[in-house]
């Protein structure tokens, strides 16, 4: 069953795209992340041009993070103060990211930049997640107590000025590192077509020592805001947002997420992190293989009119 995408100007299989939405939604619900790092490569794999894929995944993530963020909001787990400081960096990062995206598109180096960012970022983050969760599982097996929050430990950035107190997160920290984290998430999000939850949540937990549930809730809040902005900016700057593709992905995503949340609650936290680590590393490896193997067709042809 095919449906024509009016902006991307190509027909796609409706059930295939809906299925992708459900599958990625399931994973995003399970791990409490947006799932953009899976959705963007999958869309490219089924024949959606990278520029279209990157520009359409944000609206899908806005829909699923809206759904998730509302649930956390009702439980009062979103740290609005922390979210707003992250957002101030995130909005600038997103705007700069969309701008860099359109330059890369004109230079013909978008695919390379997206590919390299995937390999480097996902490789590092996935690697850290894997080692950390394997250690936690080994510790649990040996029966030694889990490492708890150490309130006394200070990192170098705790000496920075502009200190703010975030009550929900139980931290007292400078606004500067938080804004920088927000900027990075927004920037890479816009270029790679990801929400950045899998980057932000570990950063908040391990660097800022924010409680896990507050990290997840605040990350969803930030993802929602940056992805809404990315959607509008991609529509203005690159004219590549396809409302039909976006709607199919959103519907699949929010349905899949509901089942994912239930599946996630049935698995122990460190096992869940191990699975997520494997998934992230797997995607990084897959993209890396594509970058180094000899392409079937060395030439690509694009219409110059699509680049403005």
């Amino acid at each position, binding site marked *: 069953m095919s449906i024509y995408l*009016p902006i991307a100007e*190509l027909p796609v299989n409706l059930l295939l795209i809906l299925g992708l939405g459900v599958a990625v939604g399931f994973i995003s619900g399970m791990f409490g992340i947006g799932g953009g790092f899976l959705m963007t490569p999958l869309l490219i794999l089924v024949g959606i041009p990278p520029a279209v894929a990157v520009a359409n995944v944000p609206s899908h993530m806005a829909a699923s993070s809206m759904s998730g963020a509302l649930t956390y909001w009702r439980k009062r787990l979103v740290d609005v103060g922390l979210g707003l400081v992250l957002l101030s960096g995130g909005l600038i990062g997103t705007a700069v990211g969309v701008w860099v995206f359109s330059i890369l598109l004109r230079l013909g180096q978008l695919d*390379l930049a997206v590919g390299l960012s995937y390999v480097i970022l996902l490789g590092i983050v996935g690697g850290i997640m894997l080692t950390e969760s394997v250690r936690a599982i080994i510790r649990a097996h040996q029966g030694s107590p889990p490492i708890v929050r150490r309130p006394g430990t200070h990192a170098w950035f705790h000496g920075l000025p502009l200190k703010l107190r975030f009550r929900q997160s139980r931290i007292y920290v400078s606004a500067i590192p938080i804004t920088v984290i927000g900027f990075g998430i927004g920037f890479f999000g816009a270029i790679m077509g990801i929400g950045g939850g899998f980057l932000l949540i570990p950063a908040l937990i391990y660097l800022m020592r924010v409680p896990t549930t507050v990290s997840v809730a605040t990350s969803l809040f930030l993802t929602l805001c940056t992805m809404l902005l990315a959607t509008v*900016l991609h529509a203005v700057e690159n004219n590549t947002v396809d409302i039909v593709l976006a709607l199919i992905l959103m519907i699949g995503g929010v349905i899949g*997420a509901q089942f994912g949340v239930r599946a996630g609650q049935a698995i122990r936290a460190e096992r869940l992190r191990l699975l997520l680590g494997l998934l992230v590393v797997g995607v990084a490896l897959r993209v890396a293989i594509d970058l*180094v193997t000899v392409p079937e067709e060395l030439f690509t042809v*694009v219409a110059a*009119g699509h680049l403005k």
Partner: protein
Amino acid sequence: MNARAIQILAAVIAFGTAIFCIAPLSAERLVTSVSSHRVLISSNFTGTEVVVFGTIEDDEKAVKRDAPYDVVVTVRGPAETFIARRKERLLGIWVNAESRQFIGVPSYLAVMTTRPANELASPEVLRRNRIGIVNHTLPQRIGADFGDVVPQDPFRVAFLRVKMDQGLFHEEPTGVTFITPRLFRATVPIPGIAPTGNYEVEALLLAGGEILARETTAIEVLKTGFEEFFAHAAREHGFLYGIATAILALGTGLIANFMFRRD
């Protein structure tokens, strides 16, 4: 210099075509028609076929031909500028390196003939009349210069190969069939990714390597209703369109949250 150069180029091509296109005084006339002049793209569009029909009619001064008739049907989509890029290995990674611009070339090109194009006439006649895909000029911008290159040019060869793989360039050496000795038909495949715009349909009648008659008509490929509405909105009102998509995302998330709410 861009628009100016294209204009000059177009003028030169038009002039050249005009000189060579003046049909020789012959006894035959072509009458053609297409199964539909408009290809409408709606939400279930996955490509379609347009059938070109034609008849060969005699003037008063009918002559007896020794050679059989040959027909060439060429369909050319709207002209566009394309960038072709070649990947090269750099530090073990395949990256886009060299690139060329193809200026004002057909975004869609289909050539259907009664028998292989190179058997129809001398190479000179084939080239002048743009019979067959290889005989179409594909002007490239090379540095500050414009010009078509040798047929073996790797970028030209690759451009044709990519376009053919996409189904946007199509050649069928037996694509024109005679239903009666004077009535022929050709089926033109329009793929799902066909660009919108005006398509020129040209029919040529040949016998014994000579052009006897020429007839052109047109097909228009366009989006309709819903598809046209959104394409227009995205192109002309990017900001509002983006806001609408964002609101759609918020609404979908909100509805999903209430539908699946368990607390």
